[in-house]
Structures are given as structure tokens and as C-alpha cells.
């Protein structure tokens, strides 16, 4: 059984220009959205109080809001979380008020209504901890990209390094853009997912680059574009199968993993699809645009000592 049976190469690179245009537009869109909408930063980053409570019957959000307003929590964000019985409440940090008291006050306010409320989770994060995390997360991502750049440049060639890192940056920006456009909550688990997208997309890109390098060395006469097409065609089956198995698992995580890792699964699902696309189009297109050629990828000739002298025997 084969997924896709192809005779001859697929001319992937014919769509190079449209793909680059599309990606550029998406990146611009993402950046604009990030600049205007920003991200819906979760508690980990903003600081504040998060309370997850469980009711024994479907909860009425409007009642909860009213109860909280009368307890002077007008700014509380109240939403369902996972099921209709579970409710998530977010409250911004307050000046002066001992922040760790807030949780108890909110619970008391909800219980005052006579409902049977079970505390499931309370998190309180000071605003300065959040600031630090934003810095740390950004730093982690930049360091990761830099180290990858250096490794690929050493193992392959600088054009490939730039190509794969642009593909990674592309995936990260688009994933962040998605979260910004849809205003999905961006918390620490989502950050971990974005970092995992880097790992996955990198894995994918390296496989493609590896094949391009091999074919440049193996195939005698061909245009760079042709070699890239051949390589992409050869790795297409693998690319699709691996993406497919990963997506299968992520779908299981999305539907079965529970509300707490919903964001994580969303980011990865999107990231894996984008990452697959980017390793086909972005990485190789950038390498081609930078003028990758056969000579760049030949293994360095080691000059043997005395090779230029006539043999004595």
C-alpha cells in the first residue's frame, strides 16, 4: 500500500512564488494582529487570580457574575471550562489587597448563593513573576533558534541554516498569529507547545534538507530547482505519514486530554500542519533564493600528501 503513487517528480517549486507571497501575507497579518490585538495572555504572564470551581449542576454564568459583582469583583472574567458544570474565573491583580486573600473571598461569595461549589483549582501569580516569564519565554525561543542556526550551518551549509530558521520563525509567528486572531488564551502550556512546534518543524525541515544535500551530490546534471523537486517528491510520503500520525495523536489529545491542555493541543495541531507546509516550501525556497548550488554541498576534498607526485612503483 502506498499513500501517493507518483510517476516522475512533482513540480513543487512551480508554486514557489505564490507560496512565498501567501506566507508573507500571513506573516504580515500575524504581526499586525499581534501588534493591535496582542495575545490573550494567560494568568502565568499577567499575574492575577484564577479560580476553577465545579458545580453539581450546570452553572448559570450570569448568576455567578452577579454574585461576584456584589462582592466587588466587577472585573472578573467568568467562563465555562471544559463542561457546563465547571467554571473558570479570572481576576486581575489588585493593588494593596493581599492577593492571596482573593481566592477565599471569591469562594465565599459563590458559596453565599447557597450553591454547592467545589474548589478545583486556585492559582495566584504576582505580576512580577509574570513579567519574568515573558522575558524567559522569549529568551528561550531566541536561544533555541540561534543554537539551531549554528548547528545546521555547521552540519549543512549556511543557506540551509537560514532556510530552516526562516521556516521555524515562519511557523512560530503564524502560530502566535492564530492565537492572537482567535484570542485564545496564551499560557505556559501553550508556550511549551510553540516550542514543541519548533522541534517538530525542525525535524521535518532537516529531513528535507538532508535529502536535497544528498541529491545534489548524487545526481549529476540537473538544475537546483529540479533537484529540490526530486528531493521533495522522494520525501513526500514520509512527510505526510509522519504528519498524519502526529496529527492523529494530537486529535486524541485535543478531544480526550481535558480542558487544561486544550490550548496546548490547538497550538500543536496548527503548528504541525504549518510546519509540514513550511518545510516543503519555505526552507527550500529560501535556500534556493540564496543561490544554493552543487558546489556548495560537495564534501570538502581532502588533499592527500604526495598526491601530485608520480608514483614510484
Amino acid at each position, binding site marked *: *500500500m502506498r499513500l501517493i503513487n507518483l510517476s516522475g517528480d512533482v513540480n513543487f517549486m512551480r508554486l514557489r512564488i505564490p507560496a512565498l507571497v501567501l506566507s508573507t501575507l500571513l506573516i504580515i497579518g500575524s504581526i499586525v494582529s499581534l501588534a493591535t490585538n496582542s495575545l490573550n495572555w494567560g494568568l502565568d504572564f499577567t499575574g492575577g487570580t484564577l479560580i*476553577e470551581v465545579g458545580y453539581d449542576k450546570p452553572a448559570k454564568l450570569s448568576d455567578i457574575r452577579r454574585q461576584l459583582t456584589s462582592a466587588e469583583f466587577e472585573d472578573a472574567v467568568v467562563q465555562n471550562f471544559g463542561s457546563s458544570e465547571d467554571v473558570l474565573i479570572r481576576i486581575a491583580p489588585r493593588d494593596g489587597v493581599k492577593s*492571596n486573600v482573593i*481566592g*477565599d473571598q471569591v469562594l465565599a461569595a459563590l458559596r453565599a448563593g447557597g450553591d454547592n461549589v*467545589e*474548589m*478545583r*483549582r*486556585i*492559582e*495566584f*501569580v*504576582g505580576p*512580577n*513573576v509574570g513579567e519574568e516569564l515573558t522575558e*524567559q*519565554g522569549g*529568551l*528561550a525561543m531566541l*536561544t*533555541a533558534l540561534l*543554537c539551531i542556526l549554528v*548547528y*545546521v550551518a555547521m*552540519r549543512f551549509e549556511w543557506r540551509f541554516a537560514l532556510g530552516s530558521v526562516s521556516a521555524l520563525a515562519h511557523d512560530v509567528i503564524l502560530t502566535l498569529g492564530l492565537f492572537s486572531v482567535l484570542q485564545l488564551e496564551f499560557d*505556559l*502550556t501553550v*508556550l*511549551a*507547545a510553540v*516550542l*514543541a512546534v*519548533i*522541534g*517538530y518543524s*525542525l*525535524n*521535518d525541515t*532537516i529531513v528535507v534538507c*538532508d535529502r536535497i544535500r*544528498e541529491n545534489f551530490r548524487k545526481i549529476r546534471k540537473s538544475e537546483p530547482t529540479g533537484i529540490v523537486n526530486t528531493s521533495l517528491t*522522494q520525501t513526500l*510520503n*514520509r512527510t505526510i*505519514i*509522519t504528519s498524519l*500520525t*502526529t496529527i*492523529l*495523536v*494530537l*486529535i*486524541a*489529545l485535543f478531544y*480526550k*486530554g*481535558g480542558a487544561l491542555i486544550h490550548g*496546548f*493541543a490547538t497550538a500543536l495541531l496548527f503548528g504541525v500542519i504549518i510546519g509540514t507546509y513550511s518545510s516543503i516550501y519555505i526552507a527550500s525556497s529560501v535556500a534556493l533564493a540564496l543561490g544554493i548550488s552543487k558546489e556548495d554541498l560537495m564534501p570538502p576534498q581532502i588533499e592527500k600528501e604526495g598526491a601530485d607526485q608520480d608514483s614510484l612503483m
Partner: protein
Amino acid sequence: MLNKNSVWKVLIALLFVGLCALYALPNLYGEDNAVQISAGRNAEVTEQMVSQVEQTLAANEIDPKRIEFEEGQILVRLTGSEDQLKAREMLEKALGSDYVVAMNLAADTPQWLEDLSATPMKLGLDLRGGVHFLMEVDMSEAIDKSLEDAEGDFRTALREEKLRYRTVTQRDNYIDIIFRDQDTLDSAKFFLRNRNRDLEYSEPGNLTLRATFSETKLKEIRDYAVKQNITILRNRVNQLGVAEPLIQKQGADRIVVQLPGVQDTARAKEILNATATLEFRLVDQDNDVRDAVAGRVPPGSQLIEDKNGRPQLLEKRVMLTGNHIIDANNSVDEYGIPQVNISLDSEGGNKMSRGTRGNIGSPMATVFIEYKATGEKNDQGKLVFEKHEQVISVATIQAQLGSSFRITGLDSPKEARDLALLLRAGALIAPIQIVEERTVGPSLGQENIELGMQAIVYGLAAVLLFMLIYYKAFGIVANVALASNLVMIVGIMSMIPGATLTLPGMAGIVLTVGMAVDANVLIFERIREELREGRSPQQAIHMGYDSAFSTILDANVTTFIAGLILFAVGTGPIKGFSITLMIGIATSMFTAILLTRIIVNAVWGGRKVKKLAI
């Protein structure tokens, strides 16, 4: 002939998988409801207590599953949560307040596995419920306090050396000493430089000598403040009777406290913030202890028991409280007798020298005071604390004491060590503040585990099925590799002592399951390519493995780098995720390349094969 296994390679690989499987095994056994008995501050849990526990339980018709004595703790395994509640109540009553009886879930690992020190994976708070606090130590306070001490020290030292100064003032992070003339300044500078090497001196002009802490000294102050606060917190957490608390330094000035199983955050916070202090008081020598014990306690005195239960009659007047103690450490004197060296801040030094001047030759007692929660609440809903006082040492004052002195008259070096620790722990050098607090309910933790497991099972089933249909016989090989991969991840996670499984970590495992097949897909696709190009099955297998190897290596090394950076930079969930990711990459490379090769060689290698089922 191509594709033959070498015996040692097979052996090593199987041994490795077997070892991981063995260490993954404890995770299959469940947990027992247990009660854990540990010692309070001045008691010790001994093996002899086991029979006392047995008798107590038998008297109350509780039948324990097993009673274990280990590392100064007794663990009573019970058959149900009802027995657990009852047993705790009974044991608490029978053993008294010197012991902490805590409810616990103990892994039901069989003895033979425990002998191999195989234990199940540690679960993060998000998976088992509990409280997590992130506390910050107020460093400016710690540095201020050290500066104050240095300031007082300057005054005394300069006076003793007869170097006349105009003023000594402490500012934000430096001390200015103003002199009357340059000559005194120069000699003072020379003198102080030799005396206080921790400080750096400069002359900003106007006959001023400015002293600032050196970078190394500042780091030392910070490290010390964190370390000391950890000691205090550990002492206090012990009072809570939490089964497996985690108290850990994070970053330069933060402390993480995790109390699994604790739900009452208010109580936890009150106890963490509760204080333990010390007092130094003179022993009342004018009155007889026996009279006091008989009920005639003189008005200016108080009866306090020492650690052996003997009453001591002390003056009510407190010579010095423990919050003046900056440091305490234990050593031995020239005759090998244990002693505790104490340093006081400048105010404490003054008080001490005033208090001891007229009392040379008199005995002085060190009293340890702590506030224990009674578990009851008052009308305002606040916890009621009980004051406990105890004499921990009585020593004779040999000479007038200053800001540093020593306590002798201790029985053993161990006692000296404990006392030094207590003295250090009693005094908070810098206040701590809770900056982050997370509580996860026990039902939510349980739910998280179940949902995570479900996701793993469904995801794994989908991938296994897909591989089987798509690669047929070779799909089975890949699936064996995938299953062993999962077992190996669990085994290695259980082996690493610091590794904790968290929800993002579980997600990391799920992701690895999806991605782990990649290496096999790469190899199998290569084999198919080689077959299409007309190579014989044996050659195709050989070439397929050979040429896919460098690709797999490159792809995985780069991803591993990403994981490594996450681990180095990240905290909390990111760290948990990166650990599973890195382990997953390593094991998936091992299983997908080495293990499948061994199976493929064993099945198809070394014989004539017409067609491959791939």
C-alpha cells in the same frame, strides 16, 4: 551474508530494554492508603515504636497491611481510607504531640522491586492535587541588615583603635564615615581594609570614607538569606505533617514550597508564616526549683522544662531575643568539647554585653519558643496557636559577652549541630512573601491523570493501527518499537530521581508517540525506494537503514538541542515538558534504529527472501 545480528549487540539492546521495563514496573502497582509517623523537633522515631504502633492499632481493631520502619519514619499501610482516618486519630492520641502523624499515599511496590530501588514516577501537583507556593525573600532587607551590622562594627572598631570620626551613616547600599582630617582617614582606611575584607572602600571627597559590599559578599548575603529561610520553612512544614514536601531554591531569591495533598491553603500559609524564636534568660538562683515545682513560683520567675523533661526556674526578664542572631555554627574547642558559636548584630551585642557584665559565673539558659497550630479556630475564624517553650541549653557565663560568643555545656557534637541549626532557623534574616500560589483539588488531579492516560491510549491505538495497515509486517516491527519506546520513557522517568511527571509532561509523551514513528517511516520509505530501484530485499534493508541513519541523527540532534535549551531556560511546566521530550528523542532513536534492526535481521536477515511485506 547481509543483515546478520551480532550476538553482543542483541544482548546489550535487550538488556537495556529489559532494565527500563523493570524500572517501569512499579508504576503498574497502585497506591496504599498509609499513615506516616515522623519525629517532631525533639523526639526520635525508633524501631521499638513499631510494636507500640502495632498494639495501638490492635487495641482499636484496625488491621494494618504492613508496618515499615525506614529512615527514622514509620509507615503504616492500611487497607482503606476509613481505616486510614481512624488510624491517624488513634495514633495521634497515643503518641502525643512530639510526633507528627500524616496521611499519605504510599506506592504499593513489591519488596523485590524496592530492593532494586525501583520506584514509580513522581507525580506533579497538577496530577495529584496539593498546594504550590513560590516565595520571594526580601533581599533589600537582608542587605540592609548586614549593612547595619557593619555600621555598628565600624563605630566600635574605630573607637577601640582611637581613630576619631565625625559621623557614620548608612545609606541605601553604602556606609559613609566622615573624618576630621585626612591623616585619620588614611590610617582608618588602612586599618579597616585589613579588618573588614568583605567591603570595598572609596573616597568620594569631603574627608569621607565610603564602604560598599563587594559583589562576592553581596552574593554570599543573598545565598545565605535564601538558605536560612529554606531551613526555617522546612522546620515549619514538618509541623504540618505533610508526607512528601518539596522545598527548593529557585533562581537567586525564590523558594518553591510544594505540599502534596494539602487543600487548606489558609492553614498552610499561617503555619509557614508562624514564628519560632529564641530567648536568652538568666537562671533564677535565689529560689529553689523544688519549691517552684511544688507550686510556689516566685513572681519574677517562670518554670520551663528542658528537653529531658526536667524543670528549670528562669527569670522572667529576657536578656536577649533570637532575632538578633545573625549566624550560629558548631565546632569543638581545644579539648574537643562541642560548642556553638553565635554572632549577634550590633544591637544584640550591646544588649548581651550589658546583660552579662554583672553575671559572670551565673548560668544562662537558651529557651526555644514556637507557636504550634492547635487545629482549632477562634470566633474570628483565625487559627489558634499554642505557645511552646523549652529550655534547650544551660551554660555558665565565663566572661562579659559581646556580639560573638559561644555556648558550651552540650552533651554531644550532634546536639551542638542541632542547636546551631535551631539558632539559625529561629531567626528570620529577611522576610518572605508569597508571590505565586497554586492549589489543585484532589479530584481535578485524578481527572487530569485519567484524561491524559485516555489521550495516550487513543493516540497510541490510532498510530499502531495505521502503521500496521500501511507497512504490514514491517508495521508490526515498528509497533513493537513504539511500545518499547513508551515503556522505556516510563522506565527512565522512574529512574531519574528528580524527574516529575506533570500534565505538560504527559502531553510531551503523547507527542513523542506521534513523532517516534518518524524514524521508522524514514527507514521504511527508504527500503521501499531501494526495492523500486530493483535491489534485492536484503540489499534494500541494508541500504535503507544505512542511508536513513544520518538523516535521523541530524533531525533528532537538532530537536534535542531545542529540548536542552528549554530545560536550561524554562521553569515549571516547560521544564517538565522538555524532560519528557529529550528522553523521548533518545529512546525513540534507540528503538527505531537499533531495536527494529535487530528484529528485522532476526526475521528476514541471513536468508533468501523473495519479497518483503512492506
